[in-house]
Structure formats: structure tokens, C-alpha cells
């Protein structure tokens, strides 16, 4: 193959290949970085891993008078059906409140002990993004999984603990502790343990599994559980949809504005990342075009040599191989370098992220590598076929 290569490397234009190399490098780096950045950002945003960003929580506006006049602030079945029929709603679920008394005690050995009246709420399980065995209540068990609002933790850490010089608690430590819970109602009393499976910054409530709520409402509230919900949770297809805002306004409903904003931000970021990736793809495609042009030019310039090689008994596959190896080799080199550059840039922005979110857990780079790998394979197959076709056209030109 040495001599063949010695022949066929004639007329290779280094500037053209360097041009391709850097152009393609820029394109691939942009694509990989887009994928990786989006994934990493998801990790930031999904600090709240219990709820997807596209979920909105809706309630009726509580005016100054509504409390006094006794106007209903619940959603009737018709209200829910009406919402469900809206094109922007993908799924909808109701919050079920507890109809019994809940008291929680919380002891941090030797430091602090809280005891408070509280309440539970539940939403349909499909809206809670926790592994199903962690978010499961077995009837009769004393162990209740609970999701608390992240605000509670912040309140303690930045307010209470700060002021009293108490140690700060992380989500991890709290997850290992248990809340003592007492439930009263319907003339019955029960003792339970609350296991904190996580904190949510999206849900302003104390969430328990649907199964527990159904069971406990039956057990401690008797039949008195047919209350209409005061809050709804819904998944929307596109949180930036104007129809959502206008629908909510028309019906005097409200949703946590900044949540809507947050999902808007995510949505817009997704659009921007998509655009950036498309730009990367365009650069890559153009650079790929340069590569193909310069390979075709090379084949054209060396067509007599290629033809003679074919005539003295070299197969089209053998003659194509050097150019195929050249292009595939360049592609591999581009990918390796692109991954390295991506990792360096990622290192820089992750450092910035970590200043804001100390216990941030970022995903690996598997997905970006997969995207890079798929690109490489696709482009290489295309290269191999294109070179082969070009050589075959030399074979056939004699006809």
C-alpha cells in the first residue's frame, strides 16, 4: 500500500485540508458543546428533579373579599374539563388536600427540635418524577415518603441556623433523618415516620404519595373527602404559549409567575441551544463540503494514476482505500480534538456553575460523545461511499 499511497498523495492540497480541519472542528465543537451545555443546564434547572419544568401549578386568585364573601376558590369538575380541553394542556391533575390533622416533630440530636401543625397534599403519581419504589406507600406502613418545599430548608439554613449559630443542613443529611408524624381525625390517632425523599423548589406544599393520601383520607376523615381541589397541576406543551396567559387571566386563575418565567427561560434556552447547534451543523456540513470538493479535486487530478492502477489489477476498493482512510482519519482527529476542546470549555463554565450551586450534580458526557460518534459514523460512511463512487466513475469512464 506504500507505493500506492506514494502515488496517490500527489496533488494533496495541505491548505484545503487544513481549512476543512479547522472549519469542521469549529462546527463539531459547537454541536458537542451545545449538547453538553444543554444537559448540564438541565441539571441546574432540574435541581428540582421531582417536577419537570413544563409543569404549571394553577389556582384561583384570592382577592381581598373572596375570603369574607365565601366565594369558592376551588375548581369544579367543569372547570377542570374546560382546562383539559384547551390545546396547550397535555395532562392535568388535581391536588388532593388532607382532611385530617397532621402534627410533625423534628429532632436534630441535641441541637434543635421543631414541632408544628401541618398539612399534606398529593398529586397524581405521574406528575412526580421520583423512582417509583422511593415514592410508594404500602397501606398500613408507618413509613411515609415526603417531598418538602426547598424554602423550608433555606428558611432554616439562612434564617434560623444562621441566627442561632446552628449547623447548616444539607439535603443529604436531612434525607437520612426522619420526621415523627402524628395524625388525628375521625376519632382515630396514628403515628408515622416521614422519610424526606427530596426538596422541591417548584412545589409549595408538603407532598405525600397519592396512595397514602387516599388511604389516610379514608382512615382519618371517613367519607368526608369529596372536597373540590384548590390547586391544579398541569403539563403544557409550550410554556411560552400566549394562550396560557390569556386563558388564566380570563378565568381569574393564577400560576406562579416566576415558575412560568423559569419554564419560559428553559424553553427559550432550548430554542437558543437548538439554533446554535444548527449553526454548528451548518458549519460542519459546509466544511464537509470543502472536504468532499478537495477529495474530488484530488481524485480528478490523479485520475490517470487511479485509472492505471485499476488497469494493472488493483481493485477499486484498494485504490479507494487511501482517500477513504485520509478522510475518515481526519474526521476521527477532528472528533478527538473537538471532545478535548469541549471538555476544556466545559471545565470553565462548570466552575462558574459550582460557585452558585455547590452541591450540583452534573451529568456525564456520554450523550455528547454519542452525538459525536453518530456524526462521525454517518459522515465517514458518506465519505467512504463518495470516494468509492468517484473511483468507480473512473473505472466506468472507459465505456
Amino acid at each position, binding site marked *: 500500500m506504500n*507505493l*500506492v499511497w*506514494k*502515488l496517490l498523495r*500527489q496533488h494533496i492540497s495541505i491548505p484545503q485540508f487544513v481549512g476543512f480541519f479547522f472549519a469542521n472542528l469549529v462546527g463539531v465543537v459547537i454541536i458537542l458543546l451545545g449538547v453538553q451545555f444543554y444537559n448540564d443546564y438541565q441539571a441546574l434547572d432540574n435541581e428540582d428533579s421531582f417536577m419537570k419544568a413544563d409543569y404549571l401549578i394553577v389556582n384561583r386568585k384570592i382577592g381581598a373579599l373572596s375570603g369574607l364573601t365565601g366565594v369558592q376558590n376551588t375548581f369544579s369538575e367543569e372547570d377542570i374539563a374546560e382546562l383539559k380541553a384547551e390545546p396547550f394542556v397535555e395532562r392535568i391533575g388535581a391536588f388532593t388536600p388532607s382532611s385530617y390533622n397532621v402534627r410533625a416533630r423534628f429532632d436534630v440530636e441535641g441541637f434543635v427540635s421543631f414541632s408544628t401543625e401541618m398539612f399534606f397534599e398529593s398529586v397524581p403519581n405521574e406528575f412526580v418524577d421520583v423512582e417509583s419504589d422511593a415514592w410508594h406507600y404500602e397501606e398500613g406502613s408507618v413509613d411515609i415518603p415526603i417531598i418538602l418545599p426547598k424554602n423550608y430548608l433555606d428558611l432554616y439554613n439562612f434564617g434560623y441556623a444562621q441566627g442561632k449559630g446552628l449547623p447548616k443542613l444539607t439535603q443529604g443529611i436531612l434525607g437520612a433523618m426522619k420526621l415523627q408524624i402524628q395524625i388525628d381525625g375521625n376519632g382515630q390517632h396514628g403515628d408515622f415516620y416521614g422519610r424526606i425523599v427530596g426538596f422541591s423548589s417548584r412545589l409549595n406544599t408538603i407532598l405525600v404519595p397519592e396512595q397514602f393520601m387516599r388511604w389516610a383520607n379514608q382512615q382519618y376523615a371517613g367519607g368526608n373527602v369529596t372536597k373540590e381541589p384548590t390547586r391544579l397541576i398541569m403539563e403544557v406543551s409550550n410554556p411560552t404559549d400566549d394562550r396560557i396567559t390569556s386563558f388564566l387571566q380570563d378565568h381569574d386563575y393564577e400560576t406562579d409567575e416566576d415558575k412560568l418565567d423559569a419554564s419560559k427561560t428553559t424553553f427559550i434556552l432550548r430554542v437558543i441551544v437548538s439554533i446554535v447547534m444548527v449553526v454548528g451543523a451548518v458549519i460542519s456540513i459546509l466544511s464537509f463540503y470543502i472536504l468532499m470538493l478537495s477529495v474530488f479535486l484530488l481524485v480528478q487530478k490523479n485520475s490517470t*494514476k487511479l485509472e*492505471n*492502477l*485499476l*488497469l*494493472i*489489477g*488493483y*481493485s*477499486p476498493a484498494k485504490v479507494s482505500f487511501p482517500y477513504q482512510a485520509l478522510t475518515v482519519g481526519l474526521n476521527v482527529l477532528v472528533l478527538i480534538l473537538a471532545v478535548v476542546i469541549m471538555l476544556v470549555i466545559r471545565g470553565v463554565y462548570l466552575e462558574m456553575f459550582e460557585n452558585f450551586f455547590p452541591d450540583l450534580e452534573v451529568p456525564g458526557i456520554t450523550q455528547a460523545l454519542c452525538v459525536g460518534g453518530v456524526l462521525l459514523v454517518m459522515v465517514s460512511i458518506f465519505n467512504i461511499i463518495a470516494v468509492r463512487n468517484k473511483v*468507480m466513475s473512473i*473505472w466506468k469512464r*472507459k*465505456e
Partner: protein
Amino acid sequence: MNKIQLIDTLPNVFQSRADIESDIWNKNVEFEKEKLYLVEANSGTGKSSLCSYIYGYRHDYQGRILFDGEDIHKYSVARWTDIRKKHFALLWQELRMFPELTAWENVELKNKLTGHQTKEQVLEWFEMLGITDRLNAKMGRMSFGQQQRVALIRALCQPFDFLFVDEPISHLDDTNAAIMGQIMTAEAKKQGAGIILTSIGKHIDLPYDQVFNL
């Protein structure tokens, strides 16, 4: 491959001509192994076309060409590659050497593909043809006569059933032409192969089994 048959073969460009007087075109012709043929031709009678048809890189003819009774029109790319590597050696009139490689590299390019000849054998041929001193010279720097000799050596670096040599001695003196004839026939005999030689006037003096006028 034992037999090459041409049945009513005629280059498309000759179709309109009614006055074709040829022993090959529009006739039934057979070439067999172990025989020695001379095809004499004037220029423009389609000698190189004949080469390219039999070697499978042009198909602009009518009639049929058969190898062992099989029409070569249907041959696949892989089949042709195999034939060019193992069954059919061709020395082109225009040589088709690589000017940027040395004489030795040109021969090696073919011999590496087939692994047919030993280095000693190749060197012996260089010696016999008096071009040992040009072994490492770039092909492009050699005279056409020298290139013809290298081209013959390259053509012999493969197993073959037929050796087709197109005007091999157009630029050679009689001594070298005779040596070339000697090498060719010896190698063909060793392989039990047939030789088809073309010429436009000057030809090597050999005991031909059949002479055609193209």
C-alpha cells in the same frame, strides 16, 4: 482461461465502413493458450481498441467476445480485477507507467499486488535488458525505449494465461528486441500461456503460429 474468441466483433466506429478488409474484425477468431500470434496492423485499424476490448476497459463494439465460451460483457468489476491480476497480462503501447516512481517501484507496485516474481528474477530481467543502472531512476526521466523494457518486466510480474503485447519494440534496437522476445516466450512457456503480439511494421522475429492482418 484457455481460449479467447471474437465473434463478428467490430468497433462501433467502423460500423459505417463497408470496406473492412480484416482477418479479425467481423470474423470468427480464436486465440488459444500456448500459441504465439502476431497481429499486424496499419495505424487506425483498431489495434489499441482490440486491446481495450479484450482487457475489459472499453465496450464500444458490436459482436461478441468470449473467454472460454463466456461473454465478457457480463463480467463484474471483481471478475475483471481478478483477470487483470491472474489471467491476462498486458503491455500497453502507451505503457501506462507511473513517471513519479522509479523503475524498480513501478515493477514493485505490480509485483506486490500479485506476489508472483522473486526479486532475483526481476533483477535478472533488468540485467538481461541492460537497464540495471536505471533501477532507481524516476520513470519520467527515462527514454521511451528504456520505459518499454521496464513495462515488459512489470507485465510479467503476474500469473497469466495470455500475454498481450501492443507494439513492444517500437523504440528498441534489434538486440534488445530479440532479448525481449526471448524473455517473453520463456516466461509464457513456463506458464503455458499464449502470446498475442501486435506491430505496425517492425516486429520481433519469432516462430509465430498464426499471423493476422488487422
